[in-house]
């Protein structure tokens, strides 16, 4: 029976010891007292209550604490609400400023929509009364091109069709002029600057001549490419041959540029829907050996044989995938599906689909009965169309606009914008700040725990035992403290980088390195304090009672040092976060694409970024600064309130 008791006591040993330290430090001993004694003592507050009260008397510290707790919740709970795809990049959304109107259709357009068209981060619309509208990110901050800077011919009531590409806009006016604006370095419109460039020039008859504005069947823009289809089936196509691999043959061969009903652009290819209901991708995009998916027939091994006797009603293309609507109302999708573009909703199998539109990574289809289905990438909610009824849909890059039979907007769903902008690879900065904060704080916390454990062990042993133990441990401390921190950490990181280990292991090793390099200061402080405590009467009393040395060191003396440890944990936490950020900023800490507050600032050391993309460095910098400032204020206040000297003087 007695043995059993002993073993349970041992099991709880560690925790009860830890608890005892805290209790003794902050609340004093646990002696049984008579009532009189209690009354006498009640007037004297225990150190912990005094310290807590003193802490909360300081407004600055309380504010800092609230801010810090807020940030903790923000970065540790936030990731559950805002998931992040580590490998996601989108060059079309790169370097965007904070914006929130990407799905907001302008008032004048809302009730008389003729067309809505978007390829990248800005969307254009044309109303029934021939007025041109533009919304989204209307200024490219890298090239400085302002899309809202219209040419003179673009006047209200004068535009019959318009389309937006990745960096240019093409419009057809009521006079039949074809007008382009935006970037023009890659033959997006007008004459070539250099005839030898691998570009296809806009046809002469469009630059100087006019077309019949009432018979424009389709105007569409892609990545530095434009196609214009007339009602008689004639198709014009021009732009950058390198970004549109089908361009040369489609623009020049009569086989392709006549009898066209519709054109769809993916990132590198174009597909044509001919008037006879056939679809072609030209020589560059053959349907042979393409594996496709149909919502009625399931997987199709060879798209070419499948398409042989079938007719196509409508086509659409995302960046990498293509969708055909067959005349029987079924749909076929093929291409490199990365974000679920091939997962056509099962409910569409019972419907007759009449039209499909595509954004950058999603498809929206409308059935005969007016049901809308959307699938693909849903990062901005562009696929949340369940239960909506409409007769027509339009798409932006990440938006779906539902329009009823009277051309009134029913609803626009999808991506409204980036609250803090995007970085150079088109990733949302807010998401990265949340996830980066989690990483930065985790690294800081683990590093502090490692360094504190080492410091406590070294400091206590060295201070209490003195003699050769002290000598040895202090020399080791000196060796570690004379390592130049930043260069040494960089070298270690460099050596680790050459090793074949996973990213997570690498991050873990970095945590340990930070901990191993930063324990020396605290160890010295603990040693000094222990040296002072060791001479006090209660230690002599304990010794004379025959308490073991280890026990005296860790149970009698250490609790007296805990206030120092507490203060230093706080301050070191901020310190470790800063060193991690510095390392990551230089590229020797956590590597991209895994974000931390430090490596988010990595791109910000040239004047272009600093000047033009202020949101890319300002927000991570603010997050990091606010966190470290709050932690330091808390640490400082803790030191003041826990230090008996400073409270005596007050």
């Amino acid at each position, binding site marked *: 029976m007695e043995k059993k008791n002993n073993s349970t006591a041992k099991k709880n040993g560690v925790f009860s010891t830890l608890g005892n330290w805290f209790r003794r430090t902050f609340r004093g001993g646990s002696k049984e007292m008579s009532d009189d004694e209690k009354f006498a003592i009640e007037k004297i507050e225990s150190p912990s209550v005094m310290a807590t009260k003193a802490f909360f008397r300081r407004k600055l510290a309380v504010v800092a604490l609230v801010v810090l707790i807020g940030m903790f919740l923000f970065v540790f709970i936030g990731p559950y609400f805002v998931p992040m795809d580590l490998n996601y990049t989108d060059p079309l959304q790169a370097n965007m400023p904070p914006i929130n109107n990407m799905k907001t259709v302008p008032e004048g357009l809302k009730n008389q929509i003729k067309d809505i068209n978007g390829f990248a981060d800005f969307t254009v619309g044309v109303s029934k009364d021939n007025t041109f509208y533009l919304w989204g990110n209307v200024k490219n901050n890298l090239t400085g091109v302002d899309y809202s800077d219209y040419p003179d011919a673009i006047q209200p009531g004068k535009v019959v069709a318009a389309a937006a590409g990745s960096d240019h806009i093409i419009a057809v006016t009521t006079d039949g002029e074809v007008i382009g604006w935006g970037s023009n370095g890659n033959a997006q419109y007008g004459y070539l600057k250099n005839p030898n460039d691998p570009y296809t020039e806009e046809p002469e008859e469009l630059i100087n001549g006019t077309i019949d504005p009432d018979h424009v069947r389709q105007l569409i823009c892609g990545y530095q490419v434009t196609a214009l289809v007339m009602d008689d089936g004639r198709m014009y196509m021009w732009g950058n041959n390198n970004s549109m691999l089908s361009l040369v043959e489609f623009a020049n061969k009569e086989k392709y540029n006549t009898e066209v009903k519709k054109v769809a652009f993916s990132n590198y290819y174009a597909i044509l829907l001919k008037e006879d209901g056939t679809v072609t991708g030209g020589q560059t995009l053959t349907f042979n050996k393409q594996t496709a998916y149909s919502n009625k027939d399931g997987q199709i091994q060879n798209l070419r044989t499948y398409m042989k006797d079938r007719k196509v009603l409508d086509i659409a293309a995302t960046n990498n995938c293509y969708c055909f609507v067959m005349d029987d109302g079924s749909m076929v999708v093929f291409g490199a599906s990365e974000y679920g573009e091939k997962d056509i909703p099962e409910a569409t199998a019972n419907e007759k689909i009449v039209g499909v539109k595509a954004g950058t990574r999603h498809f929206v289809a409308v059935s005969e009965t007016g049901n809308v289905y959307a699938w693909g990438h849903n990062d901005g909610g562009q696929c949340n169309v369940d239960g909506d009824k409409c007769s027509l849909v339009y798409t932006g890059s990440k938006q779906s606009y539902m329009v009823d039979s009277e051309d009134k907007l029913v609803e626009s769903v999808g991506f409204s914008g980036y609250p803090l902008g995007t970085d150079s690879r088109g990733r949302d900065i807010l998401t990265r700040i949340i996830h980066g904060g989690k990483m930065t704080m985790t690294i800081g916390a683990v590093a502090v725990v490692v360094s504190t454990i080492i410091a406590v062990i070294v400091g206590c042993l060295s201070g209490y035992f003195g003699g050769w133990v002290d000598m040895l441990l202090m020399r080791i401390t000196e060796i570690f403290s004379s390592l*130049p921190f930043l260069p040494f950490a*960089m*070298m*270690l990181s460099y050596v680790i980088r050459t090793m074949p280990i996973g990213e997570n292991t690498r991050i873990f090793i970095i945590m340990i390195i930070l901990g191993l390099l930063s324990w020396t200061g605290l160890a010295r402080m603990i040693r000094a304090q222990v040296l002072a405590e060791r001479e006090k009467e209660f230690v002599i009393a304990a010794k004379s009672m025959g308490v073991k040395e280890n026990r005296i060191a860790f149970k009698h003396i250490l609790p007296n040092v805990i206030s120092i440890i507490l203060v230093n944990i706080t301050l070191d936490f901020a310190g470790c976060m800063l060193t991690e950020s510095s390392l990551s900023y230089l590229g020797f800490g956590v590597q991209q694409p895994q974000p931390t507050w430090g490596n988010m600032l990595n791109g910000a*050391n040239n004047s272009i970024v600093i000047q033009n993309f202020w949101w890319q460095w300002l927000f991570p910098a603010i997050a990091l600064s606010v966190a*470290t400032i709050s932690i330091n204020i808390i640490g400082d206040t803790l030191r003041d309130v826990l230090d008996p000297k400073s409270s005596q003087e007050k």
Partner: protein
Amino acid sequence: MGRYIVKRVLFIILVFFILSFMIYMIYNMLPIDKAAEAAKTEVQANRKLDYNERLEFWKRRYGTDGTKLERYFRWLGIYPFYDGRYDGLLQGNLGQSTKYGKPVIEVLVEPMKNTIFINIFATILALGITIPLGIFCAVKRGSRRDVAVQVGTIIGYSLPTFIIAIVFIWLFAVVLGWFPVSGMTTAGSLHWSKSKQFWDKMYHLALPLIVMTFCSLGGMTRYVRAAMIEALSMDCIRTARAKGVREKVVIYSHAWRNALLPIITLIIGWFLGIFGGSVMIENIFGLNGIGKVYFDALNGNDNEVILALQMFYVSISLFGNLLIDLVYGLVDPRIRVNK
């Protein structure tokens, strides 16, 4: 005192060997083999050569044959090569830079001058501001101005160098256009007169120096203030005041001298610390200093430059520790008696 100095020097030398061994071993974890590479290029150029024979030759030439310990001692310069020569760190041979194709020493001379120049300048600026400010705060402890400075310094030392640098570049170089964004000289300045070149350099260094000074304000002011408060609470100060000594004399003569000891540590430590910290500043501003060379070497796998600079950083740091110890021993008799 003599015994104390000898003891410290011997210890520092021991630590130098331990650290150099440690760093050499870490460096050896890198997957590089100079001899194998040299042999490979040779054999590729001339098919008749025997690879293994050439490998042996280059190994002996570079001193990479034998055990790790032998190689370490060879690198240090206290163990002979196959032909009996000593050619290592102690002989001043730091190796060959692969990027520049020159001995490492030559690569480092010019950047080293720049770095030392920048650091001395920054130290003078920082001390000139922080010491008076720290003393002022200590004397006016608890006053409104002191609290304001305290909050300011917390912000100062909570911000990492690179954030301060980015904000300053944005403000002074981009928005106001007072200083150049980066670089050390204007293009084409080589033909200018010496004095004009100097002022051009100073113009380019102004913003980095401002940033370095600003970064040091937080930590150093607090340190000076704490040391001064400690000194002001000593009994001798009370006695001096009771005697009726003028307050100025009390502060600048009595208290300041007592506060000097920790401040000396601070000054030396800070001056040496910015050698390591200059990696950051030199990279942000594109200054041609050793920090930039180190960074470029790490990114360009220029391993012998890395090793040499790492040893330099360690030596500087050890030298600083020795200096602090000696100064302490010199001014504080308790230390040399205790040891």
